[in-house]
């Protein structure tokens, strides 16, 4: 290898290493403040500004940092391969609680939690049986059932759409619940479903999200449920352009395109991470499974000034009745992940 080539190879290597470690750049400063509990959070590939799932988690930890005397640091690994180093870095310097956001981090949390049994961990959307891991899971299928009902009540064409992000069991849970809810209102309804992709990149591909939405609308769908992170924003663009309706996900997304967002299937990841940090602060952190659903408001559908004109009170009545039945166990929504 000639010298300039070597230099350049060295430059590229330095660059790769530099980027690989950006996820943990704040750790050195965090070792101060010995009296405070230290909480680290590792986001998934959508990034904390996805206006949806990660954004909800970020709101929760920010609120916790305001209300409790904790030191909070976050890491946003750019690619799945740097999730584990980021998480290990928090555990290694003795953080009190490390939170992993997203199902993809489940095996990573398990591996790291085994190596650091004194550190508390929490995983959102994943289940671990280790005693020092709190598994925060949601009954997304039940909330999706309710928005599926709203979609079926609202659709004029008898066709509705579902755009999922990555094709994984967790998102099937949304899809199956949505379909069942829609069928409960209109047994004849046709649900067109698409997934953006089968890799992590599926959460960050709004161009593809929009194409899928345009195709579904072309087939007659007039209400689309987008559970696709940043790719979902492409679905929002498509319904605005073609004057249809979209249902947002995880965060309340009703404000994103007012008048075109029918409702949002909210998943209060913010409340869940806030509570687990609160438990830590109050010395009552517990491992095991923590389930959030309709009764505790961990799952729901968003009504506010942006969509109150889009949904009639009669529809709300019907949906609220179904909600009560689900809570009482009179309606059972299929959990696609439990199968």
């Amino acid at each position, binding site marked *: 290898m000639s010298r300039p080539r070597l230099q350049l190879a060295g430059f590229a290597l330095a660059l790769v290493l530099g980027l690989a470690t950006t996820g943990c750049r704040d750790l050195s400063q965090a070792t101060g403040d010995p009296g405070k509990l230290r909480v680290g959070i590792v986001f998934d590939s959508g990034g904390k*500004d996805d206006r949806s799932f990660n954004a909800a988690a970020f709101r929760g930890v920010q609120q916790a940092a305001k209300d409790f005397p904790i030191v909070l640091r976050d890491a946003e690994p750019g690619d799945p391969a740097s999730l584990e180093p980021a998480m290990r870095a928090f555990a290694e310097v003795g953080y009190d609680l490390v939170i992993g956001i997203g199902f993809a981090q489940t095996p990573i949390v398990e591996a790291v939690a085994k190596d650091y049994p004194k550190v508390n961990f929490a995983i959102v959307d994943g289940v671990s049986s280790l005693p020092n891991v709190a598994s925060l899971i949601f009954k997304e299928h039940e909330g999706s059932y309710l928005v599926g009902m709203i979609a079926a009540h609202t659709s004029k064409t008898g066709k509705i759409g579902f755009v999922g992000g990555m094709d994984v069991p967790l998102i099937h849970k949304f899809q199956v619940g949505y379909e069942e809810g829609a069928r409960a209102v209109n047994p004849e309804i046709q649900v067109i479903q698409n997934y953006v992709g089968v890799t992590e990149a599926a959460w960050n591909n709004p161009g593809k999200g929009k194409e899928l939405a345009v195709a579904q609308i072309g087939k007659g769908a007039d209400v689309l449920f987008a559970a696709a992170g940043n790719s979902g924003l492409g679905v929002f663009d498509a319904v605005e352009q073609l004057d249809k309706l979209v249902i947002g996900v995880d965060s309340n997304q009703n404000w994103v395109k007012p008048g075109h967002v029918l409702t949002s299937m909210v998943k209060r990841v913010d409340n869940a991470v806030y509570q687990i940090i609160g438990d830590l602060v109050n010395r009552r952190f517990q491992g095991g499974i923590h389930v959030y659903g309709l009764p505790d408001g961990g799952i729901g559908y968003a009504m506010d000034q942006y969509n109150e004109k889009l949904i009639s009170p009669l529809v709300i009545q019907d949906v609220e009745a179904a909600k009560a039945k689900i809570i009482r166990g009179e309606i059972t929504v299929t959990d696609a992940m439990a199968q």
Partner: protein
Amino acid sequence: MSILLILLASAVRQATPLLLAALGGLYSERSGVINIALEGLMLAGAFTAASVTHYSGSPWLGLAAGIAAGVLVALVHGVACIRFKADQVVSGTAINILFLGVPALLSGALFQSTGATPQVPQEQLLPIAPIVLAFLLVPVTWYVLNRTPFGLRLRAVGENPEAADTAGVNVARVRLAAVLLSGALAAIGGAYLSIGQSSLFARNMTAGRGFIALAALIFGKWRPVQTMLACLLFGFAEALAIQMEGVSQVPVQFIQIVPYVLTIIVLAGFIGHSRAPRALGVPYQEKR
């Protein structure tokens, strides 16, 4: 609209960013400089275009800024490869990796985000102009390449730089011009993604389109019309996969490999031997 029309429109929209990047790559590679950095150049263009459009409210200004960013990044690649005779693949890879990180860094400073820009309102998007431009550029590129002195020099330095040098052509200058041009075109392709097709920049939103463009270029034998057909084929396969996915019972994983399987079949069976420019990837040492 009939299903066929929807399919074709979708194919054209999805071919557009590929075509712009591939035409950019064509200029660079026909001059003898490998441009594996198309992905990074697209990301640079996409991020800059969305950011400037957000601040100025003008997508045209955003597009211009995106082009400027693409040219600037291409300048780094050009100087590294031409002036310092660096390994072209390594330099291109470095740029690709760099632009996984740079938008995240800048969006943090500008928008308190980590890799995304705010959404641009619908009326400030350019959904059509880049498509028209991309397909107009095909005959233009053919003409430049085959009927102008610049095109002749470009092909000469890519095939036989010694001969071109002997004939008085400034090899370094022609190659640098070609690389800058490729930066501009790839950046327009990126800008189409962020302020044309969608309305925001999301981290790594090109999702490999720069590499597919590169494949289309090789597949199109480094010729503009064939490259366009290759891009359309990829776009059509994508559009077909989208249409099939919702209705058929075939698992989504199978449908999503359709574009790639189609590529392999066509590459292996139908296009015959694809010959690269002879001096591609070889830095040129002036004989003076």
